[in-house]
């Protein structure tokens, strides 16, 4: 390096005047500092930019990681006297509660197994033969041997107390919790104490049968003030009864009274031994399942006249049904069998079904099979997640909709009790030897897999698997649907329609600017188009949504007309221009010609608007929007419009072939007046032929019953793709135009000169010499424009209506990836599933544009190399 050699002691030694031999220290230090700063700074920016992608990936990855186990504790519980009916865990994973068939309610500390409380539930020694609990909460019900039922509730109420509210003399359970033999006290943040206690209530028995109740299910509905409690019972004799209990509080005496009305379901088929019974929360469906896999579905919408809607057998051969439970929402049923399978069924609307109510129960989600027969199913209280335990002690945590197995745990032996924590953050199992296991688990995003994000998913209530995006959640049982496919589709749809509008205009304009326009005009026109590129897209979005959309709505027919008037007027003008004498045409070839073109364009616009009402009456039954909807008129005009360009080309080819082969006299040669007239005549004939051909095609298709509407043209909404296409085309045109023009301009001048010198006309030079040389550059320009259209946000947010649909209808809206992010991310909870899915959307967008831009860049590099070679 030069400066290094200068720092040597002998540098410049021959000079007469003594110069300092050494570079001053300050300079060296400054050099070092600059060196370091620039290198570090430069690398930092480059890494920062790479970091964007890394960060996006890092946020997205947890979507696909399934679940993890935090801590696992294991202890042995004292033996239970009699069967355990019910196990529950509180919201904070403090205690586990067991209700025994002997009527005792025991709570023990979840993390140590120490007994906290053991009280008599006050059932008075009744002989409990059946039991049911609601999924969401604490409501339970007992079926008794005398044919009566009893409502009750087992609660784990939680209170937050001030620090001084903690009683004295507590027994320590572990380093955090303490108990007084009734409740557990836990110090929490802010100097407060959480008290977790037990509560039990039961009501007087209600007689529903004369025989012991064997199976029971119970749902709570209605309002808080006037709850309706529905339950279904199956007694010893196999009689199935649906009952409704209505409670009323007497305003005077404050005494609650309960009235039970019962309706008998159609008798079970002979020989069917019911093993499970389920009731939906609106009490409109009753499912009875037998051990051999037969499921009877009763339609009980009419309480007084329940009917057997459907009978299906879900298990082949001699497999036994071992588990049958609802997931949250009471639509999806987990069916566990002796072969270890645990599949999810739900009811869908199906008019061809053999059932009486137009629904049928279908296997929606076949899940991974466990090694041993399923013995217990524990659904989550807040999602479609559930745990299944098999006879070998394997406990798997799964998700119904995403069909994935999130966790595989080992409990030693078949579980007798299995419960998921209310917040889905713990799993508690007690096996037949009274060994208890508690796992604290973390399953942040059970509902997402690559399959659910990019594939079809069968959501409950949907007739078939579908791509659905529906992220707003109303209730707990509502399932958020995250399929990115409709959004990607929306992005592609907006891009395609805007490019359909933008690419022809931008490329033709670029060719014209580069090849046919005087430098003086070019110096005005090009910066003008470039100015257009710097318009903020929010402005375009606003104009599109509030000016263009209403305009298009009013003048829809004019938009159709414009597709005819613009090409026709320009061509007519061109043929007219040909009649100008060569000298005049030559003199006017610069600015005046271009101004004429502009005037023709304006005229074509006016013509389109003027002819709109006429066109609307003639073709579209008087109302284009009604026509698009399919209410009036026929699809023939659409076929006519779409077939026109192809028909024109076909007609022109046919004419030239016919005329060139067989009627040579008709082919004009030279450029004399006769040739001009003939060329005009040729155009008119070709046009007429094209019109006739496409009209014939349209008539033929309509006659054969083909309806062209319903695909690209359908119901009209105000914020639609047509408007988006225009506005986004407006944003993309200058970009494509500038880059394509640059590429055309970069073709070496000597090629142009050589071609013209050989006698080619400018048109021939442009099409045969310049365009082929610049085609890769032009392609790159289109790609860059596409990249911009894919990522454009504000225009789609404002003008596209934001409906996540998947159809190609120009008159309908769309929801693009970018718009979806802009609309939903501000409301997404940090690190929630929606948040991460939106990051995935951003990553998808990033990758899409990166691929498109890289392709453009590679093509452009090749173009540059080629341009240099030329």
């Amino acid at each position: 390096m030069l400066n290094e050699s200068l720092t040597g002691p002998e540098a410049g030694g021959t000079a007469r005047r003594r110069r300092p031999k050494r570079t001053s220290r300050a300079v060296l230090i400054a050099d070092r500092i600059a060196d370091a700063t620039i290198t570090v700074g430069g690398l930092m920016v480059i890494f920062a930019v790479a970091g964007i992608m890394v960060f996006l990936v890092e946020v997205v990855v947890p979507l696909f990681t399934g679940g993890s186990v935090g801590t696992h504790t294991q202890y042995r519980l004292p033996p239970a006297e009699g069967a355990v009916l019910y196990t529950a865990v509180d919201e904070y994973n403090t205690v586990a509660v067991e209700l025994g068939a002997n009527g005792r309610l025991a709570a023990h500390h979840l993390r140590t197994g120490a007994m906290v409380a053991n009280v008599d539930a006050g059932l008075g020694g009744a002989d409990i033969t059946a039991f049911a609990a609601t999924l969401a909460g604490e409501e339970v019900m007992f079926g008794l041997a005398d044919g009566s039922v009893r409502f009750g509730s087992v609660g784990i109420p939680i209170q937050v107390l001030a620090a001084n509210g903690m009683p004295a003399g507590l027994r320590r359970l572990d380093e955090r919790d303490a108990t007084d033999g009734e409740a557990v006290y836990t110090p929490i943040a802010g100097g407060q104490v959480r008290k977790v206690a037990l509560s039990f209530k039961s009501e007087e028995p209600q007689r529903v049968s004369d025989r012991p109740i064997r199976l029971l299910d119970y749902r709570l509905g209605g309002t808080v003030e006037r709850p309706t409690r529905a339950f279904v019972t199956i007694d010893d004799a196999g009689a199935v009864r649906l009952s409704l209990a209505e409670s009323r509080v007497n305003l005077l005496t404050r005494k609650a009274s309960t009235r039970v009305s019962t309706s008998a379901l159609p008798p079970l088929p002979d020989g069917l031994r019911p093993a499970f019974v389920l009731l939906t929360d609106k009490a409109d469906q009753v499912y009875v399942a037998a051990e051999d896999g037969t499921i009877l579905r009763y339609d009980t919408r009419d309480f007084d006249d329940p009917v057997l809607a459907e009978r299906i057998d879900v298990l082949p051969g001699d497999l036994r049904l071992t588990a049958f439970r609802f997931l949250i929402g009471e639509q999806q049923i987990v069916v566990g069998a002796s072969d270890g399978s645990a599949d999810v069924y739900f009811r869908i609307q199906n008019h061809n079904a053999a059932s009486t109510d137009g629904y049928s129960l279908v296997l929606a989600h076949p899940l991974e099979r466990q090694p041993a027969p399923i013995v217990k199913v524990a659904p989550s209280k807040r999602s479609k997640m559930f745990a299944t335990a098999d006879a070998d002690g394997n406990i798997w945590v799964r998700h119904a909709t995403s069909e994935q197995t999130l966790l595989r745990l080992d409990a030693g032996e078949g579980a007798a009790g299995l419960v998921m924590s209310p917040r889905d953050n713990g799993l508690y199992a007690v096996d037949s030897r009274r060994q208890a296991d508690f796992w604290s688990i973390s399953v942040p995003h059970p509902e997402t897999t690559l399959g659910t994000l990019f594939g079809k998913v069968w959501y409950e209530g949907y007739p078939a698997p579908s791509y659905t995006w529906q992220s707003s959640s109303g209730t707990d049982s509502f399932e958020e649907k995250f399929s990115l496919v409709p959004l990607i589709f929306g992005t592609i749809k907006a891009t395609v329609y805007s490019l359909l509008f933008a690419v022809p205009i931008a490329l033709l304009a670029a060719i014209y600017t580069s090849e046919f326009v005087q430098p003086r005009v070019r110096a005005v026109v090009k910066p003008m188009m470039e100015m257009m590129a710097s318009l903020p897209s929010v402005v375009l979005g606003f104009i599109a949504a509030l000016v263009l959309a209403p305009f298009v709505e009013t003048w829809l027919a004019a938009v159709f007309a414009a597709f005819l008037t613009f090409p026709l007027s320009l061509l007519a003008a061109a043929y007219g221009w040909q009649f100008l004498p060569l000298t005049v045409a030559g003199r006017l070839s610069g600015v005046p010609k271009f101004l004429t073109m502009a005037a023709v364009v304006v005229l074509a616009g006016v013509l389109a608007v003027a002819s709109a009402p006429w066109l609307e009456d003639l073709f579209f039954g008087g109302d284009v929007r009604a026509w698009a909807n399919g209410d009036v008129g026929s699809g023939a005009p659409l076929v006519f419009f779409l077939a026109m360009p192809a028909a024109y080309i076909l007609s022109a080819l046919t004419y030239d072939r016919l005329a060139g082969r067989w009627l040579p006299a008709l082919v004009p040669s030279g450029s004399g007046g006769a040739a001009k007239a003939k060329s005009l005549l040729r155009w008119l004939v070709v046009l007429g032929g094209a019109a006739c051909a496409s009209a014939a095609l349209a008539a033929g298709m309509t006659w054969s019953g083909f309806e062209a509407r319903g695909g690209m043209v359908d119901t009209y909404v105000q914020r639609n793709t047509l408007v988006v296409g225009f506005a986004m085309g407006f944003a993309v045109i200058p970009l494509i135009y500038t880059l394509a023009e640059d590429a055309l301009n970069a073709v070496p001048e000597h090629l142009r000169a050589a071609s013209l010198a050989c006698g080619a006309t400018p048109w021939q030079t442009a099409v045969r010499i310049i365009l082929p040389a610049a085609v890769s550059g032009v392609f790159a320009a289109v790609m860059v424009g596409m990249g911009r259209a894919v990522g454009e946000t504000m225009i789609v947010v404002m003008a596209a209506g934001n409906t996540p649909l998947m159809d190609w209808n120009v008159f309908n809206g769309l929801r693009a990836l970018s718009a979806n992010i802009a609309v939903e991310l501000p409301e997404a909870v940090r690190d929630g599933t929606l948040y991460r899915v939106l990051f995935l959307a951003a990553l998808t967008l990033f990758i899409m544009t990166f691929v498109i831009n890289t392709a453009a860049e590679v093509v452009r590099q090749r173009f540059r190399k080629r341009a240099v070679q030329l």
Partner: protein
Amino acid sequence: MTVIEPKGPEVPAKRPRRAHAAELSAFGEPFLWAHGGALAIGIVLIIGFLVLVLWNGIATFWPRPVAVVTLEDGSLVAGEPSRTEPFRPGPELLSSLSETQRQTVAAADGWAERRLYRIGNYDLYNEDFRWIADYAVARVDYPPEMVFVERLEWGPFVGMVQALAVGGETRTAASLRPGELQSELAKAQDRWQRIRHIERSLIGAVNHEMERERLAVRRAILDHGAGSPAALAAQAAAERRMKPLEERYQALAAEARAIKDADAAVTITLADVGGRDKTMPLSQVVRIYAANDLSLIEKLGVYVSRWWEFLSEEPREANTEGGVFPAIFGTFAMTLLMVIVVAPFGVITALYLREYAKQGRLVSIVRISVNNLAGVPSIVYGVFGLGFFAYILGGSIDDLFYPERLPSPTFGTGGLLWASLTLALLTVPVVIVATEEALAAVPRSMREGSLACGASKWQTIRNIVLPRAMPGILTGLILAMARGAGEVAPLMLVGVVKLAPELPIDGYFPYVHLERSFMHLGFHIYDVGFQSRNSEAGKPMVFVTTLLLIGLVAAMNATAIVIRNRLKRKFAVGHF
């Protein structure tokens, strides 16, 4: 012109045919017109677009006459006439028309014209605009006594002045001296300003102090634990300082109340064209003018005062009226901050790539990546800004420095700083590319000359390369600013709000509040044009804002172009 057969070489078998001129088809006239037409469409579109924005933007504030329309059924409607449009009355509407009206419509092939009137008086009518079909109009007058009143609430009032009550003395419109109304209005507005000053600035300052005391106590509790001596001392000190603040607050509130009482005594009674009265404090009136009785000078006065209000005031009525000063301020502050960040980093990176890094495969890959990043959608940067800057960086800052304010975030949410950083990231490729090009344009001979003279590398860069490249760098920076100023999508995620209560710069320590959310012209357009209750009422406002934003961006671009042209000239001379 001797011309050859164009297909000559490919079809040698054909009999050569010579002509004096090329075949007509060789000129491709129809194709030329298709190409030229495309260019013309582009130009017409952009001119049309600019005319649309300019016309609507410039004309919005011009005071228009108020028409009183007498309908065929005898009822009266008063309002500013706005646009007209043709429409096609539906069958239900047609059947409700009179026979003559039906004939009018039938004569026009079932079409009719209608005109949109801005009737104002939202509090009386529950609508701001009304379409009136031409066939329903019996007569249109422009009576001189009609006034157009702009109000602080409920939008404009169109009607007549009925009476003015000043301290219990009521005077009817007829007995008002000329100019009296305006002078009373000026006084009322002064009172209103005074109230606002007390409530916002003075009481605001007291509140700010009190909040600071409260936070200091929380901080002490967090640092030393509740009940610790330090915390108790802080509590006692805060209470001591709170007392005078409390008193000052009471005094200010009393003063504001007194002025408000005085203000309530001055009321104006207006009547709409149907005779319905509306009485309100005069201070609620922003501007009042007799719409049909204005000279050109007076119209100009109204026009200028409306522009001034627009540029200097805060928005009212869900941003559809008033001004956009906070949005202008926010846009400028954010753009400025962005440039401060992006300039050094962009230039340093370009210097590294061009002057320091070894030119090879890696650098060319980096260069392609940087080029590509310029094409990554802005919303992706917004997502990154929210996730990384606001949540991760901001969250850490909050934990470290502002624990007493949690759980309400200080830096842990969108704000001016994060918005600027996000846009800096978004525009850094623009600056890098422009700077690199400028550096590449500095002739190698100059560098070598400098090094040969004994300058160090940094000296060469600082004294020779950078000055030559400066115009190019500036162009890049200005283009980056123009892009940043017009970008909205990422800002929606990282700190722009529809209505920011406070500016990011104010009189309270530390004076510059980078964590605050802010308003932005682009977002203002989105919000008013798209999200407001009444987009028709907000539309004129949006057009003006659009004009402002486009003007801003265009001015920046024009500056960049001018600098670029200068640069070219300079190099033409400076090259050796």
